[in-house]
């Protein structure tokens, strides 16, 4: 089978969100000697984008989108072990995410993490209701490119502002890009508190992350 055909089959199974067939096809592709990097960049990434479109068009829904994210993450993990020593998957960047102090609503944040990681970001999920000090400590320790802060309630939204303020005072604000999200959050709020970006759902969070890091999507896909 031609490489193109193998990749097309992987995309097709991925768009069907077939949790058995995608890993099977990927294993076969590796056995046939197809470059794992090609599978990620021209197969899984393309499939994930297509799945994002299906979600936007209301042909699939949240539980299926989550599964697609899980499949992509698992396949990426499998592929890692097949890279020869000196080749590594270029991660788009390191993102740490959490819900801010006082907010325990984390389904949205989890979804953002899943999609970011499926789209080639390394994601460290700090969890929910994370104190501002802990976030600062982690920023210093891990030096992420992006910090994603989620708040579902209007009463916890000021926590996002507080984190930005604290990072500023500690002198690390300029070293990271900050994305904010959550039901009541608007772009106006993001601008007001001095965040770098904002997204209203998980799929646009990925686009926003790419945007603030100026990741060139086309070149990432062509590998």
């Amino acid at each position, binding site marked *: 089978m031609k490489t193109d055909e193998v990749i097309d089959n992987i995309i097709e199974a991925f768009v069907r969100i077939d949790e058995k067939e995608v890993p099977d096809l990927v294993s076969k592709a590796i056995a046939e000697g197809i470059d794992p990097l090609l599978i990620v960049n021209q197969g899984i990434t393309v499939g994930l984008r297509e799945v994002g479109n299906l979600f936007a068009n*209301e042909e699939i*829904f*949240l*539980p*299926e989108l*989550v*599964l697609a994210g*899980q499949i992509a993450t698992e396949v990426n993990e499998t592929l890692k072990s097949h890279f020869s020593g000196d080749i590594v998957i270029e991660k788009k960047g390191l993102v740490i995410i959490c819900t801010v102090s006082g907010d325990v609503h*984390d*389904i949205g944040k*989890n*979804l953002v993490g899943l999609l970011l990681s499926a789209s080639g970001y390394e994601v460290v999920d700090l969890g929910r209701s994370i104190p501002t000090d802990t976030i600062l400590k982690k920023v210093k320790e891990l030096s992420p490119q992006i910090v994603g802060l989620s708040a579902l309630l209007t009463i916890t939204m000021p926590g996002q502002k507080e984190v930005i303020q604290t990072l500023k005072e500690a002198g690390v604000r300029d070293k990271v890009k900050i994305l904010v999200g959550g*039901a*009541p*959050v*608007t772009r106006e709020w993001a601008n007001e508190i001095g965040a770098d970006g904002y997204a*209203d759902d998980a799929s646009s969070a990925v686009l926003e992350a790419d945007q603030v890091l100026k990741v060139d999507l086309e070149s990432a896909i062509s590998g």
Partner: protein
Amino acid sequence: MFPRIEILNNEEMLRIDQASRALLMEVGTHVQNQEALEIFDKAGARVDYKSQMVKIPDHVINDTLSKCSSCVRLYDRTGGPPLLIGGDRVYFGTVGIATNVLDFETDQYRQVVCDDLRDIIRLSDVLNPPDFVLVPATPTDVPSNVVDNIETKLLLTNTKKHFIAEAQSGKNSKKNIEMAAEVAGSLEALQERPFFSTLVCLTSPLVLRDDSIELIVESSRLGLPLFIESGPMCGGTSPATLASTLIMANAELLSSFVLAKSVNPAVPLIYASWARILDMKAATVSHGGPEFSLLRIGTTQMAKYYGLPSGGGGILADTKSIDVQLGMEKLGTGLLPALAETNMVVGMGLFADENAISLETLVIDHEVTNWIKRVLQGIEVTSETTDLSVFEEVGPGGDFVRTKHTRDNFRKEMFIPKIMDRGFLTLDKDPRATTMRKRAHKYFTKVMETYSLPELPEGIDSKLDAIINR
């Protein structure tokens, strides 16, 4: 169990039954057709040929009811299994005497033309519900003496679903049947699987008009299904109590059933009603008020009292705009009859006091009826739906979004709206940005991509035209 409602108890229904029978004997029915008078006479009714008054004794009514089936089968053109009309099944359909359409482009009312009717029939074909298509509008750009036949031609050539046709006379009803037989291949093929029924609207109080009689007799002879509706107006063409209006609606239906079953015991009959009130300010009928829903539940319960398949108006609205009142009236008059198990609820698309239709209201009613259908399913409590293993799998503090259990169940358990506005406020900050009407229009464009024409015999168009123009 499924959620269901009743408003009359057995004693109350017995009273209405007794009063209806008394009405048919003590007051009688004006039967404006010589042949029908003879049919009633032969069936055992007391007939005064001079005054054309017919009095129907109890035993004739009992005899008629004994010939009725609890279930009418409505076929379609796909060759699939028929809709079974009766019992606890609830289906939704269009309806139409509307001569106006609310044009989306201009936002103005204008008269319905054949192209509008064609578009509405095609939209009815792709949406589910409607489960069947009662002719959904009356075109104004064709001669009125054949408008019913032109409607039937448009139904035959644009939908695969079962449809209910109207006819203004026995002659035009014959033409409808002839056209349908032409599409079916033969009259016998049509009789075997009748893919259309005929609508009969009775006249209150207590009149069997010549044209209605012709329709009843014509279809009954051939054994083709009849959707017979009574429509007394409480305070206008029936007394000003809802109970008396039920008596009137019931008596009129029973007399028409006697006529049909006397012609042919095999004719399938559906007991339907538009019993309603006369609005005492507007001096016209109201179909969106609480009385309409109460009367529909009442007529449905009377149908069930006799073990008959039921139907009638519902999902209706008096409002002249696609507005809050529309949503309120449509849901109220759709949900309540559905909860009473009205087998055929007709009204999808219609609004503005029966005078207007639009593509958008039909799409909105598609959303409303699917919302109602989900309610009718109730909450299923079984060992599968209460399985503990998924609780154990997720444990305290976890989320269920990513479980296989959720993927396997959410589409079954949850109504997935097509046009309702949901989600966070941040997605749509301008409250006027996307109204339901705009979303309905967008969905219309999308859903029509799936439309396909019904299969038709070669050269059918000119054959149908020849029948119409004869």
